[in-house]
């Protein structure tokens, strides 16, 4: 591994200062992705700022029934939190669908949001990749792209955002709390990640020194659920995943939230589908129609063309399940 300096500050201000002043600094959370990337020479920080000593590892109640989740809460802890399981089953399910038990024990909420794509060409230094090496091209576009994105893609990059947790957070209207050199700010989760465009190497709205400190969840009154479709039963990234919340009143969709994973370059809030569903009938035909409209924007390659249909089927099935298992209650 390339040599680097290591610091472990004990308060947030010191961490932000360290990361902002040291050029090429990276925050280290659970290390489940950063360390891999450093081993492969893809991430090459000169300074690693270990934030695991910061007091950001609690889940707190917010007035009005929401939760504030510290950025250093471990994925496994959050998934098992009774409040999360009761009020946001979609989040607990998404966390448990990710990675393996060992990785979830290490991975943090903040790190999960910042994990990078698993595009194999991104990982292989011998391949062309605009995200790893801007301007070098994209070997995925005409290579193996079965796992790649069909929504939010550009000519520069079709890499999928790999997180499960972030898909649930996108559906939940979560807000990311960030501390930077100029103080704290709040970014809606759905605005936190950027589309690749011509700059796929820039993945989020974070600037130098910016530290994710927490994620806020507004209260949820709809029933929710996470469905992940993948090539094996565990320890595989999503081909398609759906985070959904649905409240039905008198056969009509009173509230719906829908986000997609595995198919897009960022956690994908399916606003178009939501718009169509809201106020309409809560039946299979309506679900399918809304899903089809959302996926009409898909830009597919031969390897991943199946994902559009699979996404429609998975959205439809997830909403159907929410109606049959108490879409009217929480």
């Amino acid at each position, binding site marked *: 591994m390339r040599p680097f300096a290591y610091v472990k500050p004990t308060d947030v201000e010191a961490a932000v200062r360290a990361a902002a002043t040291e050029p090429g600094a990276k925050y280290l959370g659970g290390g489940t992705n950063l360390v891999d990337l450093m*081993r492969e*020479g893809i991430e090459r920080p000169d300074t690693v700022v270990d934030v695991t000593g910061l007091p950001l590892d609690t889940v707190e109640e917010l007035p009005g029934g929401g939760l504030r989740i510290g950025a250093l809460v471990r994925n496994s802890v959050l998934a098992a939190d009774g409040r999360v399981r009761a009020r946001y089953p979609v989040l607990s399910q998404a966390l448990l669908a990710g990675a393996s038990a060992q990785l979830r024990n290490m991975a943090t909420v903040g790190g999960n949001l910042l994990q990078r794509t698993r595009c*194999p*060409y991104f*990982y*292989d230094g011998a391949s062309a990749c605009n995200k790893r090496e801007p301007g070098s091209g994209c070997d995925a576009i005409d290579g193996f792209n079965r796992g790649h994105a069909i929504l939010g893609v550009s000519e520069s990059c079709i890499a999928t955002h790999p997180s499960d947790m972030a898909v649930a957070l996108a559906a939940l209207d979560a807000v990311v709390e960030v501390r930077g050199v100029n103080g704290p700010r709040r970014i809606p989760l759905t605005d936190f990640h950027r589309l690749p465009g011509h700059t796929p190497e820039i993945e989020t709205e974070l600037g130098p020194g910016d530290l994710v400190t927490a994620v806020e969840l507004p209260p949820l009154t709809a029933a929710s659920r996470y469905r992940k479709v993948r090539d*094996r039963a565990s*320890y595989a990234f999503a081909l398609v995943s759906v985070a959904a919340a649905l409240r039905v009143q008198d056969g009509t969709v009173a509230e719906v939230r829908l986000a997609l994973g595995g198919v897009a370059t960022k956690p994908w809030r399916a606003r178009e589908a939501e718009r169509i569903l809201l106020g309409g009938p809560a039946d299979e035909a309506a679900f399918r129609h809304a899903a089809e409209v959302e996926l009409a924007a898909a830009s597919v390659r031969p390897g991943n063309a199946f994902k559009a249909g699979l996404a429609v089927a*998975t959205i439809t099935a997830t909403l159907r399940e929410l109606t049959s298992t108490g879409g009217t209650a929480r």
Partner: protein
Amino acid sequence: MSTKYAETEQATAGPKYVGRAVDRLDGRAKTTGEARFAAEHPYPDLAHAALVHATIPRGRITAIDTAEARAVPGVIDVLTHENAPAMKPAPKVSFLDLSTLVSGTSVNYLATDEVHWNGQPVAVVVAETPETARYAASLVRPAYQELPAAVDFAAEEPNAVPQKGSLIAETKADKGDAPAALAAAPYAVDLTFTTPPHSHNAIEPHATTAVWDGDKLTLHEGTQNIPWLRKHLAQRFGVPEKAIRVLSPYVGGGFGGKGSVWAGTLLAVLAARATGRPVRLALTRASVYHTVGGRTPSTQRVALGADADGRLTALIHTSVSRTGRTGGMGEQITAVSRHLYAAPNIHLRQSTVPLDLLANTFMRAPGESIGTFALESAVDELAWELGADPVELRMRNEPERDPVGGQRFAQRMLREAYALGAERFGWRERDPRPGAMRDGRWLVGMGVATAYHPSIRMTASVTLRMAADGTVVVRCGLHEIGVGAATVQAQIAADELGVPLDSVRVEHGDSDLPPGPQAGGSMQTASAAAGVLAACAKLKRTLLGLARRAPDSPLRGRRLEEPEARDGGLYLGGRGQTYAEILAAAGRTHVEAAVKSNTLRFLTRTLRERRKWVKAATGAQFCEVRVDPDTMEVRVSRWLGVFDVGRVINAKTAASQLRGGIVMGIGMALSEQTLIDHRDGRIVNPSLSEYHVPVHADIPRIDVRYLDEPDPTMPLGLIGVGEVGITGAAAAVANAVRHATGKRVLDLPITLDKLL
């Protein structure tokens, strides 16, 4: 079960250890970490090596810049073709010297500027720590002149040439006129299947620790073939075989991937010689993908014709596989089709195409694993065509003798296996209509397929030593690749000598021991057992000789055949002596017996025997799947394998072997594939994250049964169990998916996109 082999059964009471579920003797050492693997041997001045891999498929290295790598503190040396000491070239493959088969590739690493595949090692960094070595390796910058390369199997397949046969592997067969019979058949299927390349993923990535002392080499290595590895290294490094000691007491899984000598081993030895330091080269998972061959992809055609009664009239099975241009061999992909069905017209052909890719190599049931997928899928499809039950169709075509060669079967109880399997699995509950069975929303499907793997054995040299206290040491250089190899030989020796299991110790995995059989081809257990049985007989003869000469012995004057070995001694009726008493009376501290293998004589006998018998392990695989009707995700929900593997020596380890084969077969069916970029031959998924072996959640409880009828032609009646479990498994899954969904998937793996 049957009395067919009664005449070969021992008239004695049942054996004490053979057949029982004995815990593996190395279980404690492994679970406590006391067992040391090849990368776990400390040396005070140990250096660590890492490989630099080529990033082009074919060409020449025009320059290689190592300055930056050398400048990293802790780097000892960077070896390239410009400065590495030369190895001798790999010997030419010859069937007169089987050890020549052990070269993974013919490339003379670091003695050439040529690049033959994308991933070939082009430099080795030696450093004080593994982290330093790997980091510095990333700083070595080769420049290449690229040459045109053929790397796309699908595109190159039309250029395949007929595969050459050999003494031990026939590659074609013709019986009657299969094309004409197919054309005339009232019922027929004609299908083309593809299977992808697979990579080796043993839990222990390949590792070598090499220590030179002058011209003497000590090598800690996980290998499936100590004698051939040693001979190969002696040839490559120009030292006598005796100067090399290979230590391989524990191997963290082999599956064929540690049967040949690959770059990592050679380059660790070379680096140790060049630096004068003990060198450990523990390959990263990615380096295993890039330097250790895997399973060839294949394209196979299976065409079957049948009459209205479901009797096969024609069987055509042809295959194309690939090799590397610098190594690898065609596999016996159509071989199973020689033996399974009583078709009067059979046509079998195999061909291969060499590509600019890493050589292919052995992987659990090479040939049969993918060959049974195609054949047994086609048979199932024929059952659909005929409206016949797939089990009944198979039984209707079960041959009395080998369909191609006409030999008798040494052991063949497929009928019994299917009968027992159908009963246990609830096959009668199966509604034959596709998609008719449901569990909630899940579509349920049930499929069967036949498992088949040839039974072969080689020879082993074995030495036995019994001490004055009656304890026994079995010395044989066999390979403990995680299967319980030493445990089963201890069971056999304990029973043969009538001593407690814990008084038997097996020394193995060391080239200083009498050479054992290779751990490959499902042959190790039977091969070593023959040696152990012979050595035990010899030892008892020696002991009886001592007793007969002792004036007060109750065994005085007795012939060897008479006394019974039990309770730690030799007895006739109630009278006899313990071994300790015999040795004490004779004034001996110990007795020894040695059996030396004579490979040439054995091979001659084996070839003669092949004209008389066809020998194999067989089985019936029953699979149930659940398919999500929305997403078409396939999950295996139940499995039963009923196997005819002769007499089982250890009920626990044998079942584990069979189960492991089935797990690997489920991986082959549903998820495993090495992705090779068609543009540059680069492996795109060289990691356990992206190469999908099954995880625990993919595997249901696997019910394994065996018929436990001894094969009269094998030592103790045992048949090797290492590979038969994977055969037929992928077809059983595919057939269950066909039943659940109505869709026949011809291309492995059966990922959901092929069912949507």
